[in-house]
């Protein structure tokens, strides 16, 4: 059975990747899973300078999900190139480096520092970081800024460029289209939803940063709707992320139009999740007589039921 896919020069043996920030730099979970059985690994966001991250508490469990405000804690691009990347070479799966920055120059600096390093198969650009010029509004919150990041990076790399979109916008498909127009090879979504939680006894927010990012099974319905919206609006591949725990969850994303998926929060529950999702998808295809998993991509059956779309209450 065919399970692999390609996005430009990126070639993955199956359609399940680990999501940025939820699988460390790739090696930490090695004792509990089979890295070589993954479609690929997306690294924690790498920034120009090391970042210690936010003060605790950084996470709070919520119903079916969790809030995080890690604060892009990472070793910085130099230490990444020196200490982390060498370990990732030869683990037998695709390596996608996720880049974050608070100015366009920072994105460029990280990408240029790594462009000629061995062992990087593609970039994922995290545009859910506050744009310091725009006073804290995320790059991903507006068509113009999302396009600007893409435009700045496109000519500087020959590797596939995947732009990772935030769901905290009115029309994500518009932003995806702007990135596609600027030459993005793919988009991935969703990053976390802005959320918060309060400890009623202390009357304090449960995260040091007050608000944080919501992820996990609770957000899956939102993620599916955003991926569906995006996949119908752009012709580049869409990578689906959000609340995937089982192979059936991943197949939902494929059916609504995702070419591949990423597993995030579930790896915290069980570091072998991504691999078991990949295996379960194969099994499902075998059962259903699907010979190439590609057949599932966008295969949602939508009839005209006479329903008035948009009337959602």
């Amino acid at each position, binding site marked *: 059975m065919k399970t692999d896919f390609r996005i430009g020069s990126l070639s993955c043996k199956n359609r399940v990747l680990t999501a940025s920030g939820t*699988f460390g730099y790739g090696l930490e979970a090695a004792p509990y899973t089979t890295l070589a059985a993954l479609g690929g690994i997306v690294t924690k966001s790498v920034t120009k300078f090391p970042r210690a991250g936010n*003060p605790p508490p*950084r*996470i709070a*469990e919520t119903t079916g999900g969790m809030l995080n405000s890690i604060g892009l804690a990472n070793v910085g691009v130099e230490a990444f190139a020196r200490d982390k990347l060498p370990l990732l070479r030869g683990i037998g799966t695709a390596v996608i480096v996720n880049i974050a920055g608070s100015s366009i120059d920072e994105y460029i600096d990280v990408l240029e520092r790594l462009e000629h390093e061995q062992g990087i198969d593609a970039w994922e650009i995290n545009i859910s970081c506050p744009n310091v010029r725009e006073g804290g509004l995320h790059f991903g919150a507006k068509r113009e800024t999302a396009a600007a990041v893409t435009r700045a990076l496109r000519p500087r790399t020959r590797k596939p460029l995947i732009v990772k979109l935030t769901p905290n916008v009115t029309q994500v498909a518009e932003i995806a289209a702007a990135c596609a127009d600027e030459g993005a090879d793919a988009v991935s979504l969703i990053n976390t939803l802005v959320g918060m939680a309060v400890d009623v006894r202390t009357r304090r927010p449960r995260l040091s940063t007050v608000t944080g990012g919501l992820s996990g099974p609770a957000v899956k319905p939102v993620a599916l709707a955003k991926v569906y919206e995006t996949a119908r609006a752009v012709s580049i591949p869409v990578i689906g992320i959000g609340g995937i725990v089982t192979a059936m969850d991943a197949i939902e994303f494929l059916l609504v139009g995702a070419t591949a998926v990423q597993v995030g929060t579930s790896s915290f529950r*069980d*570091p072998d999740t991504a691999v078991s999702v990949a295996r379960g998808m194969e099994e499902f295809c075998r059962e259903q007589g699907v010979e190439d998993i590609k057949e599932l991509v966008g295969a949602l059956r939508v009839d005209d039921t006479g329903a008035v779309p948009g009337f959602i209450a």
Partner: protein
Amino acid sequence: MTAVDTDALVTGLRQVSESIFALRFRAPHIAAAAQPGQFVNVLTSPFYDPLLRRAYSISNVYGEECEILFAVVGKGTSLLARVREGDTLRVLGPLGRPFACEEPFQTAILVAGGIGIAPFPFLFSRLLDQGKTVIPLVGARCSSLIARGVISGARYATDDGSEGCHGTVVDLFEEYLSTNEPVVPRVFACGPNPMLAALRRSVLGRGIPCELSLESEMACGIGICQGCAVKRSRERDQYALVCTDGPCFDARDIVPLGEEGG
């Protein structure tokens, strides 16, 4: 020495105080590798509420079996309290940095607050095996909340005075120090953050070496989420991870959450 994620067979569940249970499960690899102060990460529900695993100190090891002690306070623990012999439980461990207990000290004082007693039965027997003198001090809100039959020779402090010394376990600790000869003991402590913060002030002021077993919110337990940060005391705005750098830390190295300044 590496941890494993395994389906452990539950071999016993017994209540040891009004709200504390001791749960035993068969997990040969974990039992063989475990060191006092390490923890396991337990999946409490097959569904997604609660979503994340819960961390429990390994409170003792019996051959191929491990025991954990837990206080029923919320979702995960109310599910664990309904587990039955013969069930299987998904358990990942042993995890984290154990107590540094191999060093050449002679007297150990164990300071436990509430369910912070959990790691001590294991540490206690390890220290006795090494021929050391061990003084267990145990604090609880009231007598009915003290875990029974898990540690011998303990002295007690209760907030309401219903058993032992009337006060906190840190009061008991300071009283113990003041009434006993001044050999420099090694202190091992586990309990709620405010208690650890108070104890830390007490031992640092006296120059007594002390290891603290910390709790924090955790998502993964294995170093892939960076959620379990605790402030390092020596570098400004730098963090250690409770799950991999801890949970046991030299009291000088970290600042428990809630301790101001530091």
